[in-house]
């Protein structure tokens, strides 16, 4: 059975809420019923078939073609299934997803993977601010699963991260890992200012030496046994993180943020 393919016909001026178009909500619906679903677009509600050409039947595998940066909430609360996005995705892509896989071949906007619980979000391009973070006012960001970004990410990556893994092949902006509760963020590129600001627990794994705040204390260089296991768990990914050459187990360890409870760590490859 071919994937349910939604090809965008026109680019509306207003942002579109794509949250009704997730696998579990489309199960057992035929293309006509899917076409009749209404999506919020600014003040208006548009039928799916006004925006998209619909083909294919497999609602467990959704393909969104010609996507652009105003299609918000793609894969929100996804429960099982696969969503592929050809083009860019808007804000809140994969927000609160519970399982399954979302693969974006372009860039994503703000809050990608925010408060996600499980599953995998892959972004081939760049990600906006608050990747895997918490919504404004909420106390817990991503609670599980894996986010892989092959490009760069914006500010506040993993803000309030509770659990799960965020892997970034490129650079990140300021406040990476801010207010982290636990979990792991690995950054191969460079990091911005205020790394791990107010982090409580969790691990920031870095390939390049960051500019650390005074509230991070040097704990010396160490060989850590869990790192080879962590890198082994990335072997199945279509990413540089899966390559043997990038793995290491020897790190400089900094504990922080001492302005918080100080149980977090920044591990830098040496």
């Amino acid at each position, binding site marked *: 059975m071919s994937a349910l393919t939604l090809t965008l016909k026109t680019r509306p001026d207003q942002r579109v809420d794509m949250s009704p178009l997730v696998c579990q909500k489309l199960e057992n619906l035929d293309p006509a019923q899917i076409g009749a679903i209404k999506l919020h677009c600014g003040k208006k509600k548009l039928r799916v078939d006004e925006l998209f050409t619909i083909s294919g039947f497999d609602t467990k595998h959704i393909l969104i073609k010609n996507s652009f940066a105003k299609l918000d909430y793609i894969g929100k609360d996804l429960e099982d299934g696969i969503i592929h996005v050809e083009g860019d995705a808007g804000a809140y892509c994969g927000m609160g997803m519970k399982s399954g896989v979302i693969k974006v071949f372009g860039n994503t906007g703000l809050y990608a993977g925010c408060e996600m619980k499980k599953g995998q979000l892959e972004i081939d391009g760049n990600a906006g601010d608050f990747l895997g973070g918490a919504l404004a006012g909420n106390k817990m960001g991503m609670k*599980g699963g894996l986010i892989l970004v092959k490009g760069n990410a914006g500010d506040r990556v993993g803000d309030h991260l509770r*659990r799960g893994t965020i892997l970034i092949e490129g650079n990140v902006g300021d406040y990476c890992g801010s207010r982290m509760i*636990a979990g*792991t963020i690995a950054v191969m590129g460079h990091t911005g200012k205020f790394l791990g600001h107010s982090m409580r*627990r969790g*691990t920031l794994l870095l390939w390049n030496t960051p500019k650390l705040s005074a509230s991070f204390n040097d704990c010396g260089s*160490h*060989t*850590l*046994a*869990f790192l*080879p*296991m*962590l890198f*082994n*768990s990335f072997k199945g990914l279509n990413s540089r993180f899966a390559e043997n050459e990038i793995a290491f187990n020897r790190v400089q360890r900094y504990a922080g943020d001492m302005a918080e409870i100080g*149980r977090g*760590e920044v591990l830098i490859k040496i």
Partner: protein
Amino acid sequence: MIINGVQIDATFAEAFPMKGTRAIITAQNEKWAMIAAQAMTGFATSVIACGCEAGIERVLSPEETPDGRPGVSIMIFAMGGKGLAKQLETRAGQCVLTSPTSALFAGIDGGIRIPLGKNLRYFGDGFQTSKVISGKRYWRIPVMDGEFLAEATTGQVDAVGGGNFLVLAQSQPQALAACEAAIEEMKKIPNVIMPFPGGVVRSGSKVGSKYKALNASTNDAFCPTLKGSSKKTELSPDVESVMEIVIDGLTKEDIDKAMRVGIQAVCDLGVENGITRISAGNYGGKLGPFHFHLQEIMA
């Protein structure tokens, strides 16, 4: 049944249900993994007084261990799940946590989850951290040589304990040599351990005693010095020494296999090396539901 001049008695070994688990100990090298494993499985020959039966299953290559270091697989068996969990935890805490460079991992993925590093983490006094890797939780406990890494839980499964056979020989050295040959072969079988010293027990027991305080006592029917005095003796005049091999395993089939290769190794030495009979310890079928009929196993 006679194999290479050795008589296989028409009897059966009687085994009983136990709870079992497996853990994997790794270290900087095989030497230190083995030291930790030997410590963890020490004083664990019999549930009669040790609380559990434990042993080393096999040495693992770095490719077979979760952290890519040399390792040793150990198994622990107890009469109940609660007792098993207690033994596992205290032994892991006193023998593996303390052993230099060690790490501890689950050896069984399924089954009921019982704590491995889950409670040992409190040794970290608040400095411990956990990592969930591929869905499994590991505890990183800061210790003086670096970090002790322990998987949070391991699996507890239904198991079988007390499979056994007796080697009857014309002399003590011949009985021991035969048992050593058997253990060498039985160690190659997965999912089983032979918990007694070197895998061999020279003081097989019967249920009960004339002394009320004891629930087990010497198996006088197979004591060669009592050939003329015990009414229950099962020894012919030419038998001068009897030794027993006890096997615990995850399934009846695993014990079957271990008994078969063990008995075969003994029989290969044959009557010319002083081996006269193979028998087994049973209690008339009253002790446990698992019966290992020697002649069926060797058929």
